[in-house]
C-alpha cells in the first residue's frame, strides 16, 4: 500500500426509493494494479460501478481521484477525469454499426466532417487484437451481433482511449475461450502500463489469474479488501457467499435490513 | 364563338374551337356549412349542364393548400373561367392573380375577395346576413316582452372572415340597444372551426357564467342547435330565443318546434343560377349583361360589377317559403315528429 490510490471511495451510500443497495462502501484502486471486485448476484457491484461513473448520483460518501475530491455527476465527468467503464448491460446503440459504436462520443474528424476511413481502420485493428474473427463487416449494425461479439465491441470501445482507470463489469461473461484469454491479457497489460483497473467477475480462476487485490461486496457492504496473494480461492468464496471468512469480513450479525425474498409487497 | 349545347361534351376544353370553354369552380369547405355540398354544388351543376357548358366543381375542404392545388390544376387544365369562394382573401387574391396571369376570367362567388380584383362578384351580402340575425333576435325578444334581456353571442370561427362580417352586421343592430340599456350585453365568444360540439360547451359555460341569458345570437343553425340542446338540458328551450343561418333542415325543424327564433335563408339556387349565367357567358366569350349592380371593394376601392341577392329572414311564419323554393323538400323537413308543426305552418 505504498502508492496512493488513484481512485478512492469512502462511505458510499445508495438507495433506490425505499431500498438501500449500498451501505458505507469503501474502495481503493491503485495505479498499476488490477483490483477484482467480487460479490454475489445482487450484492451491489454494478450499482457501485454506476455510482463511480456518474450514472447514479450517490446519497452519501466521497470520491477521491488522483488525490483530489471530485464530484461526478455524469458519465461525461467520469470520462473527463479519465475513467472508462465497460458496463454489464452493455449499452450499445443498436441502430449504429460497429465502428460508429466504438467511436461514439469521440468521433475522429477532418474539419467538421467525420473521418470514417480512419475510424474504420482503427476499429478493425482493435477488434482483430481481441480475437474477433467472425464479424462479417465492420459496418454491421450491432443489433445483429452475437452475444460475445457485442461484448467485445463494448470492451474495445472502452480500451481504445487513453484513460487512467478502467472498470470492467463482467467483461468475459459472454466470451469464448480464446477471447477470454485475450481480454484477461489485455487487463493485465493495461495495469502493467500503469492504469488502475477494476475487474468484476464471478469466475475465481480469472480473478486469481490477473488481479493484485480483491474487494468483496456482501449485501451492499464491503466485506473485505485484501491482496490477492493473501487469500485463498475458498476464502474468497466464503466472503462472497457469507460476508466473512475466519477473521476477515463483516461482523457476524447479519444486517437486519437485508431480508430475503419478500413475496407480496405490492409494487 | 357560341357554344351549341352539346350537353355531353367531355373534351377537356382548351379554349380553342367554336365551343364554349370550360368553367372551374372552387368551393371552400364542407364543415362550415352544409350548403356548399348540398346546395351550391347541386344548383351549379344543374345550371351548367342545362347550358351545355363543361364545368369542374371542386371543394377545398377547408384547406388552403388544397385550395391552391385545385386552382393550379384548373388553370393548368385550361379553364376559361374560374369561379371561387375564397377561404380567406389572401389565398383568394393569390389564386385570382394566378388565373389572371394565365388570361382566365374570374368570378368571386358568395365571398368577395378583398383587393382580389375579380372580374365579377355574385353574392348575398354577408353584412346584411348579420343585420337580419340581429333584427330577428330583437323582434323575438320584443315579442316575448323581455325586460332588459341579457344577450349572448355565439360567433363563428375566429379564422373565418365571413364570421367577422356577420358579427359586424348584428353588432350594428344590437350595439345601440346595449348602449341605450334596453338590452344587456352578455358573454361574447367565438367558436373555433364552427365546431358545434365546442359550441355546446361554450354556450353551457356562458349560461353557467350568466344564468340570466335571455337571448342567443348564434351565427348559424349548427351553433344554434348546439345552444338549443343546452337549453333543453336546462328546460329553457323555447323560452330563450336563438338565431341561426342557412335554413338547414335542422334549423327549420328547430323553428317549427319553437326552439329557434329565426334563421337566414340565402336562396342559393338564385345565387348559383346568377353566377352560372355570368360564367357561361364568359366561357362562350360573350360579355355578360346580367351583372348590373356594383360593389366597391373596401380595400382597393375598385368597383366590381356584381349580382347581389338579398338574404331573407325566416321565422315560423314563413318557413313555407323555403320549401316552396325547393331549397328543402317537404319529405326532409316534415318527418313524423314535425308533421303537425308543418301542417300548422301551412306546408302541405
Amino acid at each position, binding site marked *: 500500500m505504498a502508492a496512493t490510490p488513484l481512485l478512492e471511495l469512502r462511505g458510499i451510500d445508495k438507495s433506490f426509493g425505499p431500498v438501500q443497495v449500498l451501505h458505507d462502501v469503501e474502495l481503493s484502486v491503485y495505479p498499476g494494479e488490477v483490483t477484482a471486485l467480487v460479490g454475489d448476484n445482487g450484492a451491489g457491484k454494478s450499482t457501485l460501478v454506476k455510482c463511480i461513473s456518474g450514472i447514479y448520483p450517490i446519497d452519501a460518501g466521497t470520491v477521491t481521484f488522483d488525490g483530489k475530491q471530485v464530484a461526478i455527476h455524469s458519465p461525461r465527468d467520469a470520462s473527463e477525469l479519465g475513467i472508462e467503464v465497460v458496463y454489464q448491460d452493455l449499452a450499445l446503440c443498436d441502430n449504429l454499426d460497429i465502428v460508429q459504436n466504438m467511436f461514439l462520443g469521440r468521433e475522429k474528424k477532418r474539419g467538421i466532417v467525420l473521418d470514417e476511413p480512419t475510424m474504420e481502420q482503427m476499429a478493425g485493428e482493435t477488434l482483430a487484437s481481441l480475437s474477433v474473427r467472425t464479424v462479417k463487416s465492420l459496418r454491421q449494425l450491432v443489433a445483429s451481433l452475437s452475444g460475445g461479439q457485442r461484448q467485445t465491441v463494448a470492451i474495445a470501445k472502452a480500451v481504445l482511449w487513453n484513460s487512467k482507470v478502467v472498470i470492467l463489469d463482467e467483461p468475459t461473461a459472454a466470451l469464448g475461450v480464446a477471447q477470454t484469454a485475450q481480454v484477461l491479457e489485455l487487463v493485465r497489460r493495461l495495469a502493467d502500463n500503469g492504469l488502475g483497473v477494476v475487474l468484476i467477475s464471478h469466475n475465481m480462476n480469472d480473478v486469481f489469474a490477473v488481479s493484485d487485490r480483491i474487494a468483496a461486496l456482501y449485501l451492499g457492504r464491503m466485506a473485505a479488501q485484501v491482496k490477492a496473494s493473501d487469500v485463498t480461492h475458498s476464502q474468497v468464496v466464503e466472503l462472497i457467499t457469507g460476508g466473512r471468512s475466519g477473521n476477515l469480513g463483516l461482523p457476524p450479525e447479519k444486517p437486519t435490513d437485508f431480508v*430475503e425474498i419478500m413475496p407480496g409487497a405490492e409494487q | 364563338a357560341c357554344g351549341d349545347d352539346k350537353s355531353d361534351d367531355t373534351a377537356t376544353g382548351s379554349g380553342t374551337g367554336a365551343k364554349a370553354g370550360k368553367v372551374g369552380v372552387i368551393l371552400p369547405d364542407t364543415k362550415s356549412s352544409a350548403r356548399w355540398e348540398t346546395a351550391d354544388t347541386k344548383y351549379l351543376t344543374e345550371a351548367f349542364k342545362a347550358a351545355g357548358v363543361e364545368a369542374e366543381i371542386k371543394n377545398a375542404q377547408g384547406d388552403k393548400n388544397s385550395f391552391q392545388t385545385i386552382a393550379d390544376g384548373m388553370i393548368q387544365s385550361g379553364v376559361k373561367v374560374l369561379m371561387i369562394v375564397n377561404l380567406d382573401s389572401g389565398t383568394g387574391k393569390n389564386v385570382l392573380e394566378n388565373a389572371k396571369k394565365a388570361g382566365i376570367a374570374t368570378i368571386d362567388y358568395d365571398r368577395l375577395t378583398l383587393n382580389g380584383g375579380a372580374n365579377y362578384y355574385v353574392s348575398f351580402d354577408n353584412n346584411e346576413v348579420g343585420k337580419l340575425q340581429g333584427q330577428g333576435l330583437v323582434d323575438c325578444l320584443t315579442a316575448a316582452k323581455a325586460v332588459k334581456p341579457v344577450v349572448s353571442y355565439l360567433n363563428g370561427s375566429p379564422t373565418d372572415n365571413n364570421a367577422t362580417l356577420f358579427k359586424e352586421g348584428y353588432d350594428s343592430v344590437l350595439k345601440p340597444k346595449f348602449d341605450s340599456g334596453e338590452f344587456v350585453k352578455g358573454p361574447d365568444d367565438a367558436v373555433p372551426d364552427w365546431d*358545434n360540439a365546442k359550441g355546446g360547451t361554450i354556450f353551457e359555460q356562458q349560461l353557467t357564467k350568466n344564468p340570466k341569458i335571455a337571448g342567443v345570437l348564434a351565427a348559424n343553425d349548427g351553433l344554434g342547435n348546439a345552444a338549443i340542446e343546452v337549453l333543453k338540458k336546462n328546460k329553457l328551450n323555447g323560452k330563450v330565443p336563438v338565431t341561426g343561418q342557412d335554413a338547414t333542415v335542422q334549423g327549420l325543424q328547430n323553428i317549427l318546434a319553437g326552439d329557434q327564433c329565426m334563421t337566414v335563408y340565402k336562396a342559393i339556387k338564385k345565387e348559383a343560377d346568377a353566377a352560372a349565367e355570368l360564367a357561361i357567358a364568359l366561357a362562350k366569350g360573350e360579355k355578360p349583361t346580367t351583372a348590373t349592380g356594383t360593389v366597391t371593394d373596401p380595400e382597393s376601392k375598385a368597383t366590381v360589377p356584381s349580382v347581389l341577392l338579398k338574404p331573407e329572414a325566416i321565422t315560423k311564419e314563413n318557413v313555407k317559403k323555403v320549401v316552396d323554393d325547393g331549397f328543402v323538400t317537404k319529405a326532409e323537413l316534415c318527418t313524423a315528429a314535425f308533421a303537425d308543426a308543418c301542417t300548422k305552418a301551412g306546408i302541405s
Partner: protein
Amino acid sequence: MSTSTLETAGGVKVVKPTVASHFRDYWGRVRGGDLGALPAVLGLVILILIFGTARTDTFFSAGNFANLFNQAAGVIMIAMGLIFVLLLGEIDLSAGFAAGVCGAVMAILLTEHGVNQGLSLLAALATGVVIGLLLGYLVAKVGIPSFVVTLAAFLAFQGVLLNLLGEGKNISIPDGFIKSLNKDSLPVTWSWILAIGAVAVFALVQFLRYRGRAKRGLVTEPIGIMALRIAGLGALLLITTAILTQERAINPAIASLKGVPIAAPVIGGFLVLWTFVLGRTTYGRHVYAVGGNAEAARRAGIPVDLIRISVFVIGSFMAAVGGVMLVSRAGSVDPNTGGSTTLLYAVGAAVIGGTSLFGGKGKVIHAVIGGAVIAVIDNGMFLMDVSSGSRYMATGVILLIAAGVDALARRRAAATGNR
C-alpha cells in the same frame, strides 16, 4: 425500528409490514420517483384552485360540477380506448372520426330508418368493432405502421361521415334513452343507491383479496391501510353524490334539476370494466407484455398479432361509445362530429394522465384524470372573459402548467436516484 418477521410462501422470512412502515415505504417510493397518478392529480387540483379563485361562484357551483361530467364524457371514452392502443406503442389518429362515423350510423338509423334506440346504439358499437378489426388487421397482418393506417383512416372516415350525412347535413336525434345518456341525471334515490353500492362492492373486493393472500400465507398490507383506502373512496363518492343531488336548476320554478349525471356512472362503469381487464385478466397482462417487449411476449407464446388487433378493436369500440356520448350531448351529428381537436384532446388526456406513447406503461384511470384536466381547462377558460386568441394562448399555458407540476414532481423524485 423493531420489526416482527413472519415466514411466508416458499419458506422465506420477510418483515411484517405495519401501517407505519407502509407509509414509510410509500414515502420512499414517492421520493424514489414512483409517483403513479399523484402528480397528475396534483396538477388537476392546482387547476381547480386557479379557476376556483378566479371565478369562485360560477366555477364552484353544483351546476358547473355536473356539467363537467357531460363535457368530459366523450373525450374520456375515446381516451380509454386509446390507452389500449398506446399501451402497445401504437397510435390511432382515426379515433375521432371513427366516433363521428359511429355516431352518424346511430343517428341515421334512429331518424331515417326508424330503428329503435337500443338497436341503433348496438349498431354504432358494432360499427366501432368492425372499424377496429379493419385497422388492426392492416397494422398487425399487413404490417403498415399504425400512424399511416390511421392517418389514411382519418381521411377516409371524414369522407364516410360526409357521405353518410348526405354531403354534410346535420342530423338531430330524437329524444329518448340515447339522448339522456349524456344529458340527463339519475333520480336522487338512484344516485345514492349507486354511490353506496359502489363503495360496498369496493370494500368487499378489497376484503376478499386481503383474505385470499392471508390464507396462503403471503405478505398482506396492514388492515389499517385497507380501511383508509376504503374510507377515501367512500368519502370521494359520497361527497360527490351529495353535491350532485343538490338542486341546480337555473330556474327551479320552471323545472327541477338534480341527481348524478348519467354520464358519471357510464364513465365509472367503463373505468371499472377496463381496469379489471387490464389488471386482473390474462388478456390485460398480455397487452402490457406486448407493449413492454413484443419479442419477449412472442417468445412466451403470446399471440402478438391477435393482441395487436384486439387493442384496435377496443380502441374503436370505445371511440364508438365516445361518439354516442358526443352525439347524445350535442343532440345532433354533423360532418365535424369527432373532428377538430377531439382526437388531440383524447390522446392528450391519456398522455397527461401518465400513459406513455412508447407502450407498456399506462392505466385506464389516466384517461379519466387526463380527460378531467382537459375538461376543466376548457370549462374554466370559457368562464373567463377573454378574446379567442388569448383563450388559445391561455389554454396552452395552463395545460403546460398542469403537466409541468407532474414533470417537476417526477424530476425532483428522480434526482433522489431512480429513473
